[in-house]
């Protein structure tokens, strides 16, 4: 009986050993397959994050930059530049249009874009600025050739004063329509026109 038990014990311990080895193999496999890459991934992410931190400039709240905005004169004959210092951002061109929509600070100049208009987005590609404005620019527009020209060219001149912008494509709620209020062809990118500036 005792011998048999001993034999059984030997068998049992051998079995246990085999199981242990298999378990070790599996654990090794799993560690290699999952745990290791996880660490590597984390390391990579950490490196990337730290890199990003280096690249991101510290937020410069006080830094300002001058932009040129164009508003109408009292007889709506010319567009007159108004210089404004605004907080420096990544999207200065978009910010300039937001300022343009706010209207002039000078009392003898007049706004050119309906004040309720929002800037949906502005994207610059290959020297062309695509400025997407909300439909208020049409709905709240007073109409008229002169009114429409002042709206279009105040936007075009303001944007083309940025060195990387040569032409401006006006887009209203994602669509580049034919005109805003029935005169100026805004289906194509427009260049600045000096004839709007008083000499």
């Amino acid at each position: 009986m005792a011998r048999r038990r001993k034999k059984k014990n030997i068998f049992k311990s051998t079995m246990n050993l085999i199981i242990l080895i298999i378990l070790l193999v599996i654990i090794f496999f799993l560690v290699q397959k999952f745990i290791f890459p996880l660490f590597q991934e984390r390391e990579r992410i950490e490196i990337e994050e730290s890199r990003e931190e280096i690249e991101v400039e510290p937020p410069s709240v006080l830094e300002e930059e001058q932009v040129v905005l164009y508003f109408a004169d009292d007889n709506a004959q010319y567009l007159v530049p108004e210089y404004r210092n605004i907080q420096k951002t990544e999207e200065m061109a978009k910010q300039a249009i937001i300022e343009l929509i706010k209207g002039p600070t000078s009392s003898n100049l007049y706004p050119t874009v309906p004040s309720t208009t929002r800037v949906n987005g502005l994207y610059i590609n290959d020297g062309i600025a695509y400025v997407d404005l909300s439909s208020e620019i049409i709905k709240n527009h007073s109409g008229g050739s002169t009114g429409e020209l002042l709206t279009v060219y105040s936007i075009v001149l303001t944007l083309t004063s940025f060195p990387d912008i040569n032409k401006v494509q006006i887009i209203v709620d994602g669509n580049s329509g034919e005109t805003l209020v029935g005169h100026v062809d805004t289906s194509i990118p427009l260049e600045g026109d000096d004839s709007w500036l008083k000499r």
Partner: protein
Amino acid sequence: MIKKYNYVNLIILLIFLLFYIPDQNILAQQNDIQLKLNDTILNTNVSPILVNGRIFLPARDIIEALGGRITWFPALKLLNLNLGGKEVSLVIDIPEAQINGKKVILEDSPTIMENRVMIPLEVVQLLTEIESEWDKASQEISITSHRPYVTSIRSYSHKDKTRIVIDLSEKSSYQVITLSNPERVVVDVEASLNQLNEKQKEVIVNDSLVSRVRSGQFTQETVRVVTDLKGKYEFQVSDLSSPDRIVVDIFIPQSQVGTVVQTEISQEIKTEITKDGKRHIVVIDPGHGGNHPGAIGPSGLREKDVVLDIALKLRKILQDNGLTVYLTREKDVDIPLENRPLIAMQREANVFISIHTNSAMQKGSSTAKGIETYVLNSRYIGASAKDVADRENKASQFYHYEDDILNQIIADLEESASIGFSLDFAEIVQKRLVQNTGLENRGVKQAPFLVLKGVNMAAILVEVGFISNPNEEKLLKTPEFREKVAKALNQAVLEYVRNIPENI
């Protein structure tokens, strides 16, 4: 008991081991779906992705590989694709596509994965004729694009020139060879001929330069188009787009070919303007209309009503003076802006007048006042591809020229020339209007006005006072002032047509 427990454990672990590893392999493979285009592997920055059995392809890679163009506006999440003569707009996460202006519902939306714009395969299928196959075993997507094919061959005979046009389903490369005895111009196009019917395999031209044009599938890849010449002539081969085509021009080797074209143009312009010297045609365009009231005055006066009344008054006076007059609208209806200059072209007008009342957006004060006359800004001639296409269509519609390049040259020259006439006419109009109404002279100006585009006659847009100015609105309400404006415009038209330049 312990032994049994261990066995169970072992078996479970073995099963786990057996199943888990192959599963991992499948996952690993799925990250690397291969894209094959016309039997060659396309190396893409991001692999195609399979989501719920739907295939998404990296937009730029596939569109550019198929020979298309792609423009991405990140700020607007807008994707513009240009492929096979189709223009498509897509917006990220919206299951819709605008194909040549028509809305199409998609099963899946274009999306952004791994910072790349991915488009569903169905978008590519909508754009171009492709066959796609998904091989699950090898994790491979094969796309077979149908090769460009020759759709037709046309010929046009002119006095000293013959033009052969090879129409293609899409852009393709070609080679030109010349053969002598007899003289032949051979164009080998990388395309197939399956769309060309038997009758067109030989086009009999038989004019002074060319006897016939023959075509056939030369090799599996190329179509050979042979133009049989009647002598040793000069030729030029060029490719044009929208629609894609290859143009073979054969002409007599002489230095005056340029002047031949020149005289054709000036003759055409001359006949357009002088006609028989007496019958002058005026097209009047009352601005806005229907749903578009135009500018509205402080007391509610509407631009569309004022300008229609002035136009009707002007028509009567001009007709009394023996001129032929057409209006773009006689009622309170909305005519699409681009149709208005087309009407002037169809009527073969000498003079086109678009009548408007002005407005300026000035909160609180509307001091802007006076008269101004506009002419198209010359820098916007041929400003966009659409313009070119439009003019090409218009030109062939109105002059019945079959010749495309010549059409474009003529249309451009005529438009440029028309700016000269228009400026002359605008000066007369401005002078007469200011004299008759006594309003402030704001001058003749140039602007990219859509209503003045693509015409070949004196074309102006006149702003007969500011409806936004309370004083001028009061004037614009009165029949007397409207009559004054109509009379001034009538005088200006008469002064202009009597002095129409005989030559340019």
